[in-house]
């Protein structure tokens, strides 16, 4: 009689460990593949997983077998026109003819070894070792999430929080304290009474007097209330804010006429990377998108990345807007403020100095971090030089140049690399 066993429910993901081993082993290649991917993949699918390619030669498990050359003789099926002794041109490079028997040994073909990683695996790899600098800020603020924690006892409260043990203990103590003079007198009278009772001719009058006094005292003791409002003790709970690290990220992008489509594309990717990173790293993160040409405008995410506008460039307009938003909505005692700006470095010549002053006087002092990326491959222009001054003044300001899309990831990595404590 055969056994029939239903195994469908147990041992799922038996290969999960082996998959992790694979990922662990090829981390370098996979990471390279991921960083290649971020420069190539389109903006809309940053939320999906990624296909990883590892060069076939790296994953190969080498074994010794016969190589090309020498004499090979193989039997094949399906002869159509050959007769014994026929000569056939040797097929170009391997193919069937030659080492057919080896084909099965060497396993996979020469293609790259490709496989899909999930979105989470992808993002983990992408953001590994990255953390926003100075994350721990002075203030941890109470947000919507609060939890009730025990906070000792109080004299007032609702009945359901009554602490019986403590209440009764207090009641008992109070009763003992208030009754104590009476009790003492009671004991004395009792002794006197016993003495009188022992005397042979009873002094009836004295005994009666003692008994009356004793009864009076006992009724006084009985009159002490069993429980009084003073005795009541309640468990106390107070709401405590759950610590949430709040951060706001300003994304500033130049969408002026001087920004070519390719440049904008790179900038977009930089921000996408940022946005993904933020929404992963912080429980609460606000993101403010500011796009500017000659005037700046706060927009939503959709518009920031996808709508098109052109015009001249006045960078200070965006900085002013940012300054105002910070003042109005993000008090520095409650928020960690980060900002990232992408531009092609083009600006009205007079404006750059204004930018510098704005930065130094009214923006940088309040910011945790400001990252500036310039996307172009020519000489630096005025804005870069002015920003260099900001950079020397503030450690929290950093600037980098990106030449093409492939450089985003390394720059991003460097800008936000985990700061050694």
């Amino acid at each position, binding site marked *: 009689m055969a056994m*029939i066993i239903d195994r469908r429910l147990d041992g799922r993901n038996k290969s999960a460990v082996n998959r992790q081993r694979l990922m*662990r082993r090829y981390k370098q290649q996979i990471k390279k593949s991921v960083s290649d991917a971020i420069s190539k993949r389109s903006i809309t699918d940053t939320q999906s997983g990624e296909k990883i390619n590892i060069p076939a030669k790296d994953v190969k498990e080498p074994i*010794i077998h*016969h190589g090309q050359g020498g004499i090979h003789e193989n039997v094949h099926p399906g002869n159509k026109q050959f007769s014994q002794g026929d*000569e056939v041109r040797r097929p170009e490079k391997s193919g069937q003819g030659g080492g057919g028997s080896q084909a099965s040994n060497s396993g996979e073909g020469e293609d790259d070894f490709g496989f899909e990683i999930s979105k989470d695996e992808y993002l983990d790899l992408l953001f590994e070792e990255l953390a926003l600098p100075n994350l721990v800020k002075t203030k941890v603020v109470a947000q919507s999430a609060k939890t009730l924690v025990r906070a000792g006892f109080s004299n007032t409260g609702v009945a359901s929080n009554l602490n019986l043990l403590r209440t009764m203990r207090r009641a008992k103590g109070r009763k003992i304290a208030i009754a104590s003079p009476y009790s003492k007198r009671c004991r004395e009278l009792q002794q006197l009474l016993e003495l009188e009772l022992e005397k042979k001719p009873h002094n009836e009058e004295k005994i009666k007097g003692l008994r009356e006094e004793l009864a009076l005292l006992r009724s006084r003791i009985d009159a002490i209330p069993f429980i009084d409002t003073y005795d009541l003790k309640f468990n106390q709970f107070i709401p405590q804010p759950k610590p949430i690290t709040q951060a706001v990220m300003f994304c500033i992008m130049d969408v002026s006429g001087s920004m070519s489509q390719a440049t904008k594309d790179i900038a977009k990717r930089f921000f996408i990377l940022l946005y993904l990173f933020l929404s992963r790293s912080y429980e609460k993160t606000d993101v403010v998108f500011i796009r500017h040409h000659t005037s700046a405008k706060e927009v939503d995410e959709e518009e920031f990345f996808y709508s098109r506008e052109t015009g001249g460039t006045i960078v200070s307009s965006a900085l002013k807007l940012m300054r105002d938003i910070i003042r109005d909505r993000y008090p520095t005692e409650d928020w960690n403020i980060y900002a990232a700006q992408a531009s092609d470095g083009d600006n009205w010549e007079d404006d750059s100095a204004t930018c510098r002053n704005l930065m130094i006087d009214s923006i940088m002092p309040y910011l945790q971090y400001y990252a500036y990326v310039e996307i172009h491959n020519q000489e630096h222009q005025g804005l870069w030089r002015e920003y260099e001054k900001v950079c020397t003044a503030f450690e929290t300001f950093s600037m980098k140049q990106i030449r093409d899309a492939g450089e985003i990831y390394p720059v991003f990595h460097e800008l936000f690399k985990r700061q050694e404590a």
Partner: protein
Amino acid sequence: MNTPGGKQHSDDKRQPTPERNRVISTESDWTFDLIDRYNQEIERIAKDVYHLDCYPVQLELISSEQMMDAYASVGMPIGYNHWSFGKQFVITEKNYKRGQMNLAYEIVINSNPCIAYLMEENTLTMQALVIAHAAYGHNSFFKGNYLFKIWTDAEAIIDYLIFAKNYIAECEEKHGIQEVEEILDSCHALMNFGVDRYKRRAGETLEDEPHVQSDRELILQHHVNELWRQLNIHEPQEKENKSKRIPPEPQENILYFLEKNAPLLKPWQREIIRIVRKIAQYFYPQRQTQVMNEGWACFWHYTIMNHMYDEGLINDAAMLEFMHTHTNVIAQPDFDSPYYSGINPYALGFKMMMDIRNICENPTEEDLQWFPDIARSDWQTTLDFAMRNFKDESFIGQYLSPRLIREFRLFSVLDDDREENLSISAIHDDAGYRAVREKLSAQYNLSNREPNLQVYNVDHQGDRTLTLRYYKDRNRPLSDTTNEVIKHLHRLWGFKVEIESVESDGETRITHRCPQPASEELTID
């Protein structure tokens, strides 16, 4: 299990002919009850009608994901952890998702009881096919074939695999994943050279393995110390030492040699080598009997399913579905087809088994001439004999008939790199039958297919260089991957490793070396 045919079913009324009363089910969805009934019928037919001798059967219903797991761990129901299995899983998953692969067949464990996996996605007919194919076909082959009898322990394999998995997990904990992975990588690279080909070592059974493992660690270390002792001491006795070679005779089981003799390995590393070697040995018979094993299983699923149809246990619809699948399985694309990837062992094996039955039952003039000994014999006895006493190489050499050579239109191609062109050395004609058969047989000879590489010498007087000899056959060089594998050899051995090639003219020449000498240019062909 003795179930007489006439079963009662709700379908009865819809089936007018009395024969159809016996149909087990007309549904295509399976239930546990139906699988059980099918299994009972198949078991009855296999054992009572065709006298197959099988291990007890254990059918396990699994999901497709679990099937991929099983594929990935090369059919070991319990595998230790290694990245290569993860890689295999990823490849399997990819192929399966693309629909390039059918997961229906083929996972059956050579164990007692014999475990056969049934995948939940399959239809009832497919389940029946798999039961017949794996649980009775492969099963009886595992139990009967001489190679499996000699080399594998169906009783103990599951326990051994559990031991191996636990042992390796323990090592990972003690010594780190990285270290263990490195040893395993090296062992896997040499896995094909970790088998005894001719003789089973006495007294080694998998059953005892876990129990004697800790003793062995000690003993092994003593052995190795022997090798060390001979290094520097006793200078005057050099002559005597010189005559004493290590190994005394060339050793073809390289992993065995390393396990016993590599000077620097720690006891747990030796044990891991042993585990890989044991598993390689366990699978060695399967590699030598692919055509026979699959042919035998296909022959029986075909015969049993037809028998069930004749008894009216399955209906026309099921039979058509079966035939469709069966035909796909035994399809053999021609050499010039884009789907060609060598000879399909299912096709060749199945056709040969069918052919043998045919020769027994209805021999032609040609058959009488070629197979006088089996023509008109009892086909069951003859097939049983063939299954028990051959491996692919000898099976083809013995039984491949001219008729099949014609049917497959087999021809052999000679590729000599000294000639400009390939030449057709034999085809399916009178002059070529024997040659084709011989060449095909040789093609399945593992010792032809794998390079003849043996541990030849250890320079125990000098720098402990390990020399392996490659006996060059038909002038075929070692593959380029040898340069990678020799690094693994070096990792295990711990000192210099050389491979010298014995050319056809008898001359010996060093072809591979690790570590590579800095100055000297090596000629590697």
